[in-house]
């Protein structure tokens, strides 16, 4: 049994080296019950490697992982109440989807086999469960992976880019599914390289790059700190640029692809539009741009160097 009061995930000083490469470089995270936690970073950031260590698949070079207070490297009992997969879930291609789940349920014990039908139903694979997995599409395997995880009726679900490689409809279904699981009170760790995905699903986020966490906290605060990027087109762009530069709350005014771009918060944008009209630069278009992971990285690295996990957001980007 897990020690009382133990949080679902507590990672301290986690390091994994592959030769010269530090794939994971001193990661600390704490994930509380009910969190839908985004682990966001570009390819090669060390997301999968971190999750492998959390699942006890690889031994950390240094640092510790505790799942509900137990170490998954020492014993598989640490995975009680924990399920998930890294990269694309894998199965025995020569067996049917249902047979594969039967095997996993047998390896789980604890009545997991009684949950097979329900799990297949949840991921909408019930009608294809009799087919060999070798003939499944990537999306079907992905869903079978979730079904396999659900057999354990987990309290903590670790998912490694579960929507990657899916078509838009598959991605939407996957997100809806994760949303539903989270609504049922499951703690979810979701790695992703897509800001929009994490933003849609997660309440907290760690942003990783080159194995290091560069931000940890709420996405809304991060974006507020980073400021939104707007695109502007007017009848008199030259004058508009001057006005933007003069306007308080607006920064990084530049021309991108023939449009004026700037970073601002919402009240400043409202005041800007009034100032533009008053100056006779009439607005053709004034639209917020979607903030990308790259934008966030940009603002994180342009901000003061003192970005620490849970650090004051005012410092993140000024």
């Amino acid at each position, binding site marked *: 049994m897990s020690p009382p009061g133990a949080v679902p995930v507590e990672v301290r000083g986690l390091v994994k080296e592959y030769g010269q490469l530090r794939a994971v470089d001193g990661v600390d995270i704490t994930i509380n019950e009910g969190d839908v936690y985004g682990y966001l970073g570009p390819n090669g950031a060390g997301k999968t490697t971190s999750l492998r260590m959390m699942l006890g*698949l690889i*031994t950390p070079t240094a640092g510790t992982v505790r799942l509900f207070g137990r170490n998954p490297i020492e014993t598989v009992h640490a*995975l*009680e109440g924990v399920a998930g997969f890294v*990269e694309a879930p894998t199965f025995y291609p020569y*067996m049917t989807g249902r047979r594969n789940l039967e*095997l*996993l349920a047998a390896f789980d014990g604890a009545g997991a086999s009684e949950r097979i039908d329900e799990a297949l139903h949840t991921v909408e694979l019930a009608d294809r469960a009799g087919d060999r997995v070798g003939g499944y599409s990537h999306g079907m395997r992905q869903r079978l992976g979730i079904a396999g995880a659900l057999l354990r009726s987990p309290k903590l679900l670790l998912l490694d880019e579960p929507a990657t490689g899916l078509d838009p409809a598959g991605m939407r279904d996957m997100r809806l599914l994760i949303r539903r699981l989270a609504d049922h009170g499951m703690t979810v760790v979701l790695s992703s390289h897509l800001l929009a995905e994490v933003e849609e699903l997660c309440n907290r986020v760690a942003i990783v790059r080159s194995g290091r966490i560069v931000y940890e906290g709420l996405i809304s605060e991060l974006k507020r700190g980073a400021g939104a990027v707007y695109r502007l087109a007017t009848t008199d762009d030259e004058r508009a640029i001057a006005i933007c530069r003069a306007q308080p709350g607006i920064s990084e005014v530049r021309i991108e692809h023939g449009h004026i771009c700037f970073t601002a918060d919402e009240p400043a944008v409202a005041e800007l539009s009034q100032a533009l009209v008053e100056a006779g630069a009439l607005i053709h278009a004034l639209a917020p741009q979607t903030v990308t992971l790259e934008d966030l990285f940009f603002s994180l690295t342009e901000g003061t160097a003192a970005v620490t996990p849970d650090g004051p957001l005012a410092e993140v980007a000024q």
Partner: protein
Amino acid sequence: MSPGVLTVYRWELRKLRYQKRTYLGLGAAVIVPILFVIATHFRHRGPEDVPFGSYISRSGLAIPLVILLFGAIWMFPLITALVAGDIFASEDHNGTLKTILTRSLERWQIFAGKALTAATYGIAAILLSGTVAVIAGCIQSGFNPLQSLSGTVVSAPKALGLVYTSLLVYLIPILSIVCIGLLLSTITRNSAAAVVGTLMFSLLIQLIGILPGLTGLQPYLLSTQFNAWQGLLRTPIDWAPIIRAAWVCALYGVPALAAACLVFLRRDVAGG
């Protein structure tokens, strides 16, 4: 019931039923004795230069014994290696280790279940091949008494008992081959490399035995232990080669098995 080694064992056996190589190996174990019997039917003479070779047209019970002699060269090691060499490597090939290692079984339990399965397959292949040889042999040459290696005549029922005891003694070196297959399977993580490697190991050992100057090593070579059962077919029974087979095979098998287990327990599951 909480899952354990037997859970793994049951499912590994079930997985074998889905795989072609399983039937390839067992098929060879069945077909080779049958082909051998068919060949003797037309030649009327056996291979004179091996023990029991000249008896195969007089007693069907000599046929399984001759099969054991020839099978030791490469057939039985290969059949055994087909599964032992594949059983861990195929998980790497399918990337499924991460799937089964994140359930409720410790790694040692997975290892033990797989090792038992590989052993079971080797045992099944030998017993199946021996039984087919007995049946086909007796159809061809009759359920007749057999002359022992000491020249005494052994009644047919007693000879049948000795044939099966010989099969059991033959399993001792087979289990060492299983262990070596398991080790190569965990180390190479590649099924073909492990199967071929196990076979190569078995052939190389035989080669050492015939190198001039190294014949003194003969009693301690794995290949020699495949002949230990011949002690049973002397009167009185010569236990010395059988006892030696037990400890010599343990010297090959136990370290290989322990190393395979350690490699599997400690490895990073970073692929797949």
